[in-house]
């Protein structure tokens, strides 16, 4: 088993019971998709609908970083996770 650290903000945080940071235990070799699936199982349909479209791809503007690197620059949802990885899940953000 591996444990990863999940951090999220704003609207997604609200859909995860207001938890900004939480640990998630996954099976060895789990991917980002599996981590998100597990979170959706815990927090239910509203979170699932916020994150995934009907094709089980990320909704536009949802961004996931693993150890700081956006998953689009890795293997997307298939990016494998290691024990201790930091996973950041963002709702659409812009401005600055």
């Amino acid at each position, binding site marked *: 088993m591996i444990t990863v650290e999940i*951090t*999220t*903000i*704003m*609207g997604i945080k609200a859909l995860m019971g207001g938890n*900004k940071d939480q640990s998630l235990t996954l099976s060895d070799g789990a991917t980002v998709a599996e981590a998100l699936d597990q979170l959706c199982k815990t927090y239910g349909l509203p979170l699932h609908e916020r994150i995934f479209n009907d094709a089980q791809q990320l*909704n*536009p*503007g*949802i*961004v*996931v*970083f693993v150890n*700081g*690197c*956006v998953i*689009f*620059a890795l293997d997307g949802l298939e990016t494998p996770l290691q024990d201790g990885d*930091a996973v*950041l899940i*963002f*709702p*659409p*953000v*812009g*401005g*600055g």
Partner: protein
Amino acid sequence: MFQGGYMGKVLRVNLTTKKVSVEDLPEKIARDYIGGAGFGVKYLFDEVPGDVDSLGPDNKLIFAPGPLSGTPAPCASRMAVTTKSPLTGAVGMSLSGGYFPVELKFAGYDVLIIEGQADTPVYLHIRDDKVAIKNAEKLWGMDTQITQSIIKQDVNDHNTRIACIGQAGENLSKMAAIINERRAFGRKGVGAVMGSKNLKAIAIRGSGQVPLANPKAFETARKFMLEAMKQSPVLYPEFSKLGTPMVVDATSAMGIFPSENYRNTGERDYSTTIGVEASISRNKGSEHCYGCPVGCTQLKLAQGRGYEGGMSDPEYETYYSLGSVVGVESVDSIIYNDMLCDKYGLDTMSVGVTIAFAMELFERGMLTAADTNGLDLRFGNHQAVTQLIEEIAFRREGIGALLCDGSRIMAEKVGGEAGDFAMHIKGLELPAYDPRGAKAHGLNFATSYTGADHNRGYAFQEVFGIPVPNAYDRFAVAGKGWLTKWNQDIRCATTDCPTMCGFLMDMAVPAIAEQNTADLVSSASGIALTKEDVGMVGERVNNLARVFNISAGFTRADDTFPKRIMAETIKEGGSSGQRISQEDLNLMLDEYYEARNWRQDGVPTRQKLAELDLPEAAAVLVARGLL
């Protein structure tokens, strides 16, 4: 003769001779530079030598909206002011929105050039073709809000739009801004240039309309843009409801929200105290720029002892500059101090970062209570920040005079090792992103023609994870030279020149920004531009500005970071372990210059300048023995 978009006229006002003249806008300039920052850089390059005294009569202030300003294109009420910056010595270009920008178009002009120096305070009053230089002696000493309301009474027209300086500009603070309504041409000390010319304000009322060359094609392009805005995952409802303050939460989680003069970025979570939840609790409504359906500006009312009644609209950058970088965790103090900066006409960003620098020196014992007029300048002392804003605005003896020209000059005045803690690039204080955790964003700060300026080449790939044109690892060094060039050219061509709000471009049409600009500008103006032409405008402006800066004395050595960014590693948070070594910087710069087809000393090649049709830039380099 222009068919639309452009009014075809340049208004020139010489404050020394009091001569007012109107010239035709050459079509070649419109085609090659589009407008806004492009016009500013072109006129600055042609008319102001690089070695001119920024605060002398030979410097100029060039105000230019774009061809889309005043048309029904959404979010296009933007204007650039371009000058030689007294803060940096480089091109100083600052953009503002609101209602002032379109009014110049309605009055019949694409460009307003202010030159010379009045011997007593004046303000400029433009009503279509009636242009008057009026006595402003009674306004001198007044803040920006009172100035605007008195001028409206003076000209007996409450719909007159005004841009003015406050006391900071009068006192030639190199951090002085030009304020219009509650918005600002904030950075690079443009307000000091206005102050040096004894020009208190510019008041404009226009009665014209901006014609459209091809209304049908324009309407198609506009509808496309509005639809893309609706489809944007960010604009509605998030951005229109929360505005830029939401970025505090994002950059905090990424570990790039700078803290306490960058000495402990990532070690404290500011999102819990000054993040979007805390700041939204102070919301009283939102404000729109002219023609903007988004209305991202969030008006906030401060609460609590000492800050009651403070009303303003701090943006993301201000939660950093008057918040985290000075160690302050009170939204009320940020709202109040933001209001003070607007009132006195100061750039919140440079002011906050310069105060953070002073705080670090104070905590290190390099400044003492004797230097600070007795103020306890430890990080987190928000009352001291309030006090310092006043000291700076009025250039008060002691600490006010020490801080009021920004970090670089302050470092020179303090001497010794002080400069090691001054967070600026080319004299411009850093924006709210620690470059160690977002390398292309950082490389843009190091190479932007205006100094450490996030808006000249915003790396949304790194900060928001948008995979356009590709996805990037924000910590990686390789590939960032090419990306920075791409970001700078596209930002310049699609937002700074046409002129259009950058938020809109990033959030609605990032992947097709050049085509979108080409469609809107071509149909508005009748000048047929392809997306390749648009891209080339961005490159042309960046090259011409680079040559201006070379003629002002800048070299590759100035494309760098503050010492702390290169020497220290981020210790905690989402960017833990990151720094930018000298080797990293060299690699990124080499790649960036190569992508630009510049020599490795940072000088554009003859071939590149020829390709961009910039013989005037080549001539300047030849004259300096650089080509």
